[in-house]
């Protein structure tokens, strides 16, 4: 009897690395919906950044006779010769508004593109800073322990038991008021358009770091009891090195997922506050602030377009961030079984 030994097939290491991140990426790339979410978000961001090259109009450009036009309705007759953006630019032809115009005859698509800059900026920066703040505070609280941990935990509890939405309203009303010294200071420093963006990001960070801090604290509490933390300490790693190089990277799954979900949350908060008139102020444009007067035009012919499109972009962006976050959670966190 002869035994044939089959040669062991070894996949080349170059083709398929098995680092944790590569495995996570492979799991993530199987998650088609999440990939699509990421793609759409990137597309929105690219379109917003490229807005001046895509659209022939300025987002403040008022065109009285063309107010309340429906999407893609040709009304070239309104334009005296030479006053029209004559050459066809992507979707725009002379007198054609791909998503219609608003109550002042401003092109909705152009405003959506420019508004995306502010909304996505608030989403990304607000989520980034609140996640970093939450992670650092949570990790420090868990690592240092003792009194410090107690103070941070109490702070989280108090912040969570405050009525968040009314406080968001008060703070943004307060800071947006020029008569308040701090509001005046911000105004001089940033200018009125940028000020409202800054305020939204600020109040978002103030009220949305706690969830991240709690999650990271719990994560680090369990991580710091593991052997590798002791090993890192014994090998001479300083406290900051241990936190930054050993603990936080191991909590990265939680943090990244939280970041992605927070982006959606920040966009929703921005749009809600702007809708109430306490967020991004005119003449700056954001998705939320485009909606703020929209309800009043529902009864007008074509008035619905003023409300539909900006809201649709908010909805899609938040949906994509949530899908992305869900996919990331499945990919990064081996404990969460795909459910």
């Amino acid at each position, binding site marked *: 009897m002869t035994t044939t030994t089959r040669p062991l097939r070894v996949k080349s290491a170059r083709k398929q690395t098995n680092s944790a991140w590569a495995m996570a990426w492979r799991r993530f790339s199987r998650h088609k919906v999440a990939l699509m979410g990421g793609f759409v978000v990137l597309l929105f961001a690219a379109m917003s950044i490229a807005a001046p090259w895509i659209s022939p109009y300025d987002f403040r450009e008022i065109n009285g006779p063309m107010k309340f036009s429906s999407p893609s309705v040709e009304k070239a007759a309104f334009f005296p010769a030479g006053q029209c953006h004559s050459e066809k630019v992507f979707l725009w032809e002379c007198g054609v508004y791909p998503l219609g115009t608003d109550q002042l005859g401003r092109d909705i698509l152009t405003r959506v593109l420019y508004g995306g800059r502010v909304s996505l900026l608030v989403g990304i920066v607000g989520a980034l800073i609140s996640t970093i703040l939450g992670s650092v505070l949570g990790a420090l609280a868990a690592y240092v322990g003792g009194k410090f941990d107690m103070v941070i935990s109490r702070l989280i509890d*108090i912040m*969570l*038991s*405050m*009525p968040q*939405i*009314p*406080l968001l*309203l*008060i*703070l943004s*009303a*307060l800071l947006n*008021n020029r*008569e*308040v010294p701090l509001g005046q200071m911000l105004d001089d420093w940033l200018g009125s358009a940028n000020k409202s963006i800054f305020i939204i990001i600020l109040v978002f960070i103030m009220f949305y770091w706690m969830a991240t801090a709690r999650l990271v604290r719990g994560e680090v509490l369990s991580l710091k009891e593991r052997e590798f933390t002791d090993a890192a300490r014994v090998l001479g790693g300083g406290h900051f090195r241990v936190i930054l190089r050993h603990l936080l990277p191991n909590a990265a799954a939680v943090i990244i997922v939280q970041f992605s979900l927070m982006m*959606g949350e920040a966009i*929703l908060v921005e*749009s*809600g506050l702007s*809708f*109430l008139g306490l967020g991004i102020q005119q003449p700056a444009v954001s998705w939320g602030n485009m*909606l703020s007067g*929209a*309800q009043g035009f*529902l*009864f007008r012919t074509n008035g*619905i377009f003023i*409300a*539909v499109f900006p*809201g649709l972009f*908010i*909805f899609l962006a*938040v*949906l994509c*961030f*949530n*899908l992305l976050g*869900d996919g990331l959670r499945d990919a990064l966190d081996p404990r969460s079984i795909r*459910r």
Partner: protein
Amino acid sequence: MINFLIRRFLQLIPTLFVISVILYSLLALKPGDPIDDMRRGNPGFTQADYERLRELYGLDDPWYIRYLKWLGRAVQGDFGPSRQYGMPATQYVFQYRLPYTVVLSGLSLFFAFIIAVPLGIFSALRQHSFWDYLITFINFIGVSIPIFWLAILLIYVFSIQIRNFLPAGFVDRGIPWPDWNTLAQETSDTLEILSIYFSKAMTYLAYYSRQLILPVVALASLQLAQWTRFMRSSMLEVVSMDYIRTAKAKGLTHKTVIFRHALRNAILPIITLIALSIPVLFSGAVLTETVFNWPGMGTAILGSLLNNDFNVAMVALMFISMLVLLFNLLADIVYALIDPRIRYD
């Protein structure tokens, strides 16, 4: 347990105190007191008048002095008058605003709960099926949709295109729920009474539902999505437990295992989640209430902030803070009651 309860109740007081200081100082920072508004509305108003009135009303004191005075009256139940409505702020908030919010948030809580729980269970039991994916995806939509946008779309579709529901506001024409005894005095025919009773009741329901359905749907959508998702994952977690396998191994029917063993354990966390989201509904309905011009707490807070109605803002905000604290406590108590592993002593 009793000790724990007493301790937690006593802890509420300093927390509420801290919150009241924060709220008061923030509101006091807001420019524009009542005298400013008087001056704006009256050209003959001199600087001397201004200073005299400010002193008269104690508005020239720094905010902490005013806070202490306010606190002294507030603990006796006097929260001051409403500047806009000419009545005590507490009366305005609790009599004219709170009932509307209770109706709106109560109904949406109720519907969200009775839909979310079965939907979540169904989705969990048919994991990875088409329906499961569909429900999960709809949940994603519900969580991501901006409520005020959904509300605007609902108004557009159901009260402008299909003119079925009122687009905004609440009009109470005082249509009463029919009273059987008064009807019985007019005629003795039971069948006739029954038919009149039924038609009057239907009028009542139709009248009020025309105004309530859209805001309730808008407000319930977010809760519905969140709770369905939560119920689903809670159920999935419970079903994978060892005691479920034991129950199945004992030969119990599928139905018994799911409803007697799994559901009882899976539904408990969602009850605490609901306790936590009730106070959010009371204040967080600002957007829905604004779109529907609903005379509830959310619009009361927003309106009092925008119109410098200081006392109303304080009453409403303190009430909501108290609700948040109370329901947090309630959630803890429920946890302690249902989970014997938790010991608070």
